[in-house]
């Protein structure tokens, strides 16, 4: 049986990809950011390399333009090439997918009443490739298969935090029901506080960010109820990306423990947040749907 072994939350800051690709990680401006990932690199290499990472991220007008805007999209293809974001594609390995598990998750989520968009071909931008570089460093090929899970956090409204958490729970149910023996991690990327537009650009709110990190560990579900307006007011217009961390948190179940945590300001325009979580009690509620045989759902149409 497949199992979710850990979750990682982290920013996916493009300038870190740039610094990594140009071998500038030891420069004073970048070093504190990269140093915060060394614990995780060692842990992944020596103790906890998963077979598959479900990598939750947002596309930044690379694979998707304004023509099609999926709220939740899952990559079911064999492989995903790094996107050319204007400076040529990042010189990183091709991302290998896991179509069997991805299709299984897509089917399970749709039966769980999440209207997923299924993507068989797309390129992946810094939102997906920067976290891989931060976690695995310079490698000939990525040591894991990756299932991209893209979330719209650009065009309003993005999904609510509660919906994201519930999606994570549904992912956990899907993974548990996959018959192969696989270790799966879920990574939620993006954020933390940052605003890239308008006269208020440059907003950073370390107190709020750290309170968010506090509540990812343990068994509180308070983060589910934070409305969009609070992210916008407190963490800047792009801080809304933190809802993607809640997909990761929801997938880890009832209770978690933090293994590693790092917070650094600033990197370019943003705060950098990073946390490694393991499930303590990974149980998630059963599917409250008709196809999930939920009695309440059955009664509604009886």
């Amino acid at each position, binding site marked *: 049986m497949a199992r979710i072994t850990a979750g990682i939350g982290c920013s996916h800051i*493009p*300038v870190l990809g740039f610094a990594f690709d140009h071998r500038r990680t030891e420069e004073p401006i970048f070093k504190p950011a990269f140093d915060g990932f060394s614990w995780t690199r060692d842990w992944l290499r020596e103790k906890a390399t998963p077979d598959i990472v479900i990598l939750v991220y947002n596309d*930044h*007008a*690379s694979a998707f*333009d*304004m*023509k099609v805007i999926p709220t939740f999209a899952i990559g079911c293809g064999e492989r995903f090439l790094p996107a*050319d*974001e*204007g*400076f040529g594609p990042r010189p990183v390995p091709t991302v290998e997918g896991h179509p069997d598990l991805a299709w299984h998750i897509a089917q399970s989520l749709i039966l769980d009443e999440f209207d997923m968009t299924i993507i068989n071909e797309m390129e992946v931008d810094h939102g997906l490739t920067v976290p891989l570089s931060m976690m695995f460093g310079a490698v000939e090929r990525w040591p894991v298969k990756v299932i991209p899970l893209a979330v719209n956090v*650009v*065009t*309003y*409204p993005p999904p*609510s*935090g*509660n*919906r994201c958490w519930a999606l994570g729970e549904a992912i956990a149910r899907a993974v548990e029901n996959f018959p192969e023996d696989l270790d799966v991690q879920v990574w939620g990327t993006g954020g933390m*506080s940052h*605003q*890239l*537009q*308008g*006269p*208020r*650009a*440059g*907003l*950073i*709110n*370390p107190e*709020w960010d750290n309170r968010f990190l506090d509540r990812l560990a343990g068994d509180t579900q308070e983060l*589910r*109820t*934070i*409305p*969009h*307006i609070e992210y*916008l*007011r*407190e*963490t800047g*217009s792009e801080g809304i990306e933190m809802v993607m961390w809640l997909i990761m948190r929801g997938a880890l179940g009832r209770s978690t423990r933090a293994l590693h945590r790092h917070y650094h*300001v*600033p990197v*370019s*325009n943003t*705060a950098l947040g990073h946390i490694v979580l393991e499930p303590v009690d990974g149980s998630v509620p059963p599917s409250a749907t008709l196809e999930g045989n939920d009695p309440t759902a059955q009664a509604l149409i009886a």
Partner: protein
Amino acid sequence: MTGPRDVEAYLAEFEDIPGTRVFTARRARQGYHLNQFAMSLMKPENRERFKADEQAYLDEWPMSEEQKQAVRDRDYNRLLDLGGNIYFLAKVFSSDGLSFLQAVSTMTGMSVEEYQAMMLAGGRSPEGVRSKKEER
């Protein structure tokens, strides 16, 4: 539940955040061709054509004259007001060889150096820029 029961009430709150343009459906509609124009600059051949003759390239897109002028002026706050989205507009400033930090600073009324110094000192505090009506 966190979901809004009233979309208009949900949207109204976004107008209360100082110095911020949330990319609502209204802006997405208004800026559709502007953002698709910006997206076209992902391709090197389009960047070359745009650089060779900005006006001619812009005229290929069904954008308003205001939008075209704001692109020529590289007035990013104006472009946001006219429906631009920063991730799409990034294709314009990337074509100009500007980093996010350089381009973003132009929207703040600060010089690049002042903005960079603010970021190095920990960024802009949310104090006083959370809400216009509540002045907090």
